[in-house]
């Protein structure tokens, strides 16, 4: 039956494709059905808060300095006990990330001394305008946790003197 080999090979090919017709499709129906991202996925940035509602970001601009594509712009202002946004002296009054420039490398995460900025799992970053690509602080910061108060807070003098919290055993 070796002479029939060309024919048998054709039939084998047809059988292979036919068999795959009865496999379950691998398609993910995207907008309705979303696959969870991996644990170390680097998506849109999130600015975090402490449990009491104060912002972790202290406006030090280290993330902006670390950013290889110069996507981050930070402008800091002084905290007072009357109007306190974050522990310590200063807070970020303006915090903007240009999503068109960002390469999602995660250097800002590494540079941050207070773990204020992390790359989250949000990846739906479409916009119709270059202006919309610049994400201001209001879009990046996470909502006030339950039990916390929104910033600016009025605080007791002398309680939040330290910008960087004391970390005993820093996790990654």
């Amino acid at each position, binding site marked *: 039956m070796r002479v*029939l080999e060309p024919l048998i090979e054709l039939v084998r090919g047809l059988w292979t494709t*036919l068999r795959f017709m009865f496999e379950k*499709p691998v398609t993910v*129906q995207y907008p309705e059905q979303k696959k969870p991202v991996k644990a170390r996925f680097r998506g849109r940035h999130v600015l975090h808060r402490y449990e009491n509602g104060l912002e972790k970001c202290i406006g030090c601009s280290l993330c902006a300095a670390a950013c290889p594509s110069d996507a981050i712009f930070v402008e800091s202002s002084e905290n007072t006990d009357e109007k306190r946004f974050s522990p310590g002296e200063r807070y970020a009054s303006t915090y903007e990330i240009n999503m068109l420039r960002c390469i999602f490398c995660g250097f800002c995460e590494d540079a941050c001394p207070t773990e204020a900025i992390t790359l989250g799992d949000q990846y739906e970053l479409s916009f119709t305008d270059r202006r919309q690509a610049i994400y201001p602080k209001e879009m990046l910061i996470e909502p006030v946790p339950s039990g916390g108060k929104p910033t600016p807070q009025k605080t007791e003098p002398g309680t939040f003197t330290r910008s960087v919290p004391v970390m005993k055993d820093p996790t990654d």
Partner: protein
Amino acid sequence: MTLALVIEWIIKAIVLVLVLLTGFAYLTLYERKALARIQMRVGPNRAGPWGILQPIADAVKLIFKEELMPARADKLLFFLAPIVTLVPALVITAVVPWGPNLHVFGYTITLYIADVNVGVLYIMSVASIAVYGIVLAGWSSNNKYAMMGGLRSTAQMISYEIALGLSFVGVILLAGSASMTEIVSAQKSAWFVLLQPVGTVIFLIATLAEVNRAPFDMPEAEQELTAGYHTEYSGMKFALLFMAEYDKMIAISSIGATLYFGGYREFWFLSNTILSVDRTPWLGPIYIFLKIFILLFGMIWVRATFPRIRYDRLMAFGWKVLLPLSLALIFITATFILLAQQANNTLLLWGIPVVSLLAGVLAVSLVYRTLRRKEYARA
């Protein structure tokens, strides 16, 4: 010829054209769905439930697209070529019978547009005209790729038309007539696919080449010719060329179903039951639709499986394998028909499939030997 007859013809013609045009639209969806399933995808499912509105969305898109005409194109031919391609694809089905005669209120309705007594010849001639549209489309575009695509498809279609025509001859010999309705009624006892298995295979291969489908879609080989003869076409003119291609698929499947798979006749296991077309004639169109559906799936399946074959091999296959084999088949068929007539024993007709299968095996083995020899030469 009464007025009623003229009206009947007009109605049947309009219905047939409408069926072909909507059939084209849904064939594209069918193909996309089937291809998707073979590739473990789900295919279009956004427009309407299961994507059944997708063809309409495609049509709307194509209608509103800009129509481009190359500056140095032959304006008239560029405009006419899609029409010249589409019209043969539509009129070719005129001789295909869709069912037996219906008797409604004492009036007999025939389910074909025309019962030409040389129906098969009509099919061959109309199929040849379709080449003109493609070569004119390629030539009038004033584009080298389009020109090459047009020329290739002409050469390919002419080459495979010979094998196609010769595979028709086997059927004509068996049926004793070139009329499509008589070919169908001659298959009452056995479909011609049983008597002419190799002829059927040759027909199916040749039709793939004839309608420029994968793996013989040489005129549209993207890697070499961008899009072949329709490179310069856009908008509705492109849609017409596209429509012609898919309507040709439907037409050629209906012809294949008629010639080899019993036409509108019931499947063999349903004969002598209430579902036979002799008892319930209106089932005829449903049976032929099912057969066309299966044959179209075959075309899609082949497209999903085989890569495009090289152009010189395509020509070599057509001229050196299919043509001699189909000539041999005609000889075998004629011999056995003559023997059966002389011995007055119709059982001798069953010698045709046996001997033709042997001839087919011989052809395959010769192909195998040639391929082996080429491998050794390369090594």
